């Protein structure tokens, strides 16, 4: 396989955007292309990650629209929809195109505009990824699945609400240092957990999960320029290599899993990514995990192999996952505070890792490191893409 490098990375500020969907995608794409500074090297293909434009924005064929907006004809163009894992899936498609020799340079852009509809409609839209016959028709939503998952996980491993609150506080603090984050609002354990007023400040959403355990509904776009290793080297600047990508699936309905809190797809996708990279979880310097709910950061960090089962909570408590900890997790603020425009999330996770590995993350820069890991969690853990990035001088 040809090696693949990431030579350009950019994203828009996540939040609520008045910019049209394709324009939003174009803004992130132009940023990534500017960052890549390709010169005369053409873009061979565009892959757009998106989950809901047909329903939320009444627009389809986004990749064709983006090619046109960027005047990148005759580049090949296609849109990838894989639920909340659309972003990393699109990157995987781009990597495959280059690795196979079908393309030399691929632009991958994730975009979503969820604030075009009400919160109720957005929640229903996301819930449509659940099993139509045994989950969705009974009113299951992603927060309710996460609540059930959290209840069992907490009981099994002794996780307490304070552990989840610590993750929320950490990720909000990280987002304060990220100008692209949706939420710029510091929170405290006192304010969301221990003060008498916390019951009002942080109401239950799907017990035991509360408001500050849940990610916001966001608009946003993120973009990467992938290039064949020899082209990346020819550009003459330090770049980040896609060292490994792994994907795995699990049963659609959560209750059909032999153990509902065993994130098998996360574990297998991570193992495949690490195997492809020739690395282990212990080699990772910084990670972006899919914390649509705080409990997922905890559970994914264990399933990916960073902590033994039941140990992530105490590790959070010891500050091991903070910006200055042993393994900083979600320095961007994560989905929890950076925001979660579903189709853009997987790409944005890798944008953050690229910036971290290039030492360009500003105030939220973690210690000098060369290996980054991302987990893009599709469905409710039934379609997961894990990616390992490596700074090329390592």
């Amino acid at each position, binding site marked *: 396989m040809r090696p693949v490098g990431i030579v350009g990375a950019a994203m*828009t*500020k*996540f*939040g*609520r*955007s*008045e*910019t049209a969907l394709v324009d939003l995608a174009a803004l992130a794409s132009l940023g990534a292309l500017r960052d890549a500074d390709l010169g005369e090297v053409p873009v061979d293909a565009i892959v757009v990650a998106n989950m809901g434009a047909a329903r939320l924005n009444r627009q389809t064929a986004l990749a064709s629209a983006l090619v046109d907006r960027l005047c990148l004809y005759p580049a090949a163009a296609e849109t990838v929809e894989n639920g909340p894992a659309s972003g990393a899936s699109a990157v995987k498609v781009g990597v495959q195109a280059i690795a196979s020799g079908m393309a030399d340079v691929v632009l991958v852009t994730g975009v979503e505009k969820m*604030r075009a509809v*009400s919160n109720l409609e957005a929640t229903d839209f996301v819930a449509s990824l659940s099993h139509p016959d045994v989950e969705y028709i009974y009113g299951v939503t992603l927060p309710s699945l996460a609540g059930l998952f959290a209840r069992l996980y907490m009981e099994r491993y002794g996780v307490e609400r304070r552990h989840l609150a610590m993750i929320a506080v950490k990720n909000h603090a990280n987002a304060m240092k990220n100008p692209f984050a*949706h*939420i*710029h*609002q*510091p*929170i*405290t354990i*006192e*304010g*969301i957990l221990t*003060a*008498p*007023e*916390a*019951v*009002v*400040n*942080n*109401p239950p959403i799907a017990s035991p999960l509360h408001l*500050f355990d849940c990610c916001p509904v*966001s*608009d946003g776009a993120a973009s990467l320029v992938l290039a064949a290793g020899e082209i990346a080297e020819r550009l003459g600047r330090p770049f980040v290599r896609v060292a490994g990508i792994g994907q795995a699936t699990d049963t659609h309905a959560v209750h059909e899993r032999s153990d509902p809190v065993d994130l098998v797809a996360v574990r297998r996708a991570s193992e495949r990514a690490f195997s492809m990279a020739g690395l282990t979880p212990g080699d990772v310097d910084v990670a972006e995990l899919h914390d649509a709910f705080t409990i997922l950061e905890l559970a994914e960090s264990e399933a990916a192999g960073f902590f033994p089962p039941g140990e992530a909570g105490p590790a959070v408590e010891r500050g091991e996952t903070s910006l200055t900890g042993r393994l900083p997790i979600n320095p961007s603020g994560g989905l929890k505070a950076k925001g979660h425009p579903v189709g853009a999330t997987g790409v944005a996770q890798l944008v953050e890792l690229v910036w971290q590995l290039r030492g360009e993350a500003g105030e939220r820069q973690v210690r000098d490191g060369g290996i980054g890991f991302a987990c893009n969690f599709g469905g409710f853990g039934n379609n997961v893409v894990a990616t390992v990035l490596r700074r090329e001088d390592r």
Partner: protein
Amino acid sequence: MGHASDLEALLRPPAREMPLYPPKVITLASGEPMVVRQATREEVPILLEAIAPLLWVERDYYDIVSARLFSELLAYRRYRVRDEYVLVGLIDGVLAGIVNGREVDPKTGMSYHTVTIRRGLRVGSHLFAAKMEYHIEYLGEDEVLIVAESPIGFRRWMIEYPLEKRYDVQHELGGVPSWVLSRETYFAAKPRLVAGRRPVPDPLLRSAETIRLPGEEAVRRQVLGEKGEAPAAVPPAKRPRAKRGGGR
């Protein structure tokens, strides 16, 4: 002068003695203490200055809610609405939100508006709850008539409490028919929606004696920017600037 005063007496509604709302302090999700207290007529000019930048903000219906509150604050200042009151939330003396309403009769309250300047911390929910607390627990009313003019308000009041329909009554704001918060509903919702501690410690109370503004740009950023990119609004040059007047 005497003639003018006589005329003013005809224009000014008779006032009822209303008990003051005792200040309280609420710890927000950010850990910051917010003091909630009654605002005086003399403080109205600075409140007008705070909401003036919001009169042209369409997002989340800030324009209509701010414009209506602007006129109600003026009416309070100039004695043109009977038995009106205004409560403010202050974080380190800086204005975080305003709510108002009036007493219709000893058994009935009329909720007017809630404007949140510091967003993302449920300041609006806390202040709305404070005004319900004032109506039910301090004015001793049996019920409060309420309408929402934005989807956010509808979620916060009608759904979260939840309120009951009182469609046979026209709310004073003139739009949709009323919903109502009864004494029974209030006390049922109180444990999960009404927060705050009394008495307010002296240093905190002193910090809330003088209302300070976050600044026009900060107001716009807090209302728009922190929730995402700011859309273009009417340029400042096209907007009339509120003048600060009166004592504080």
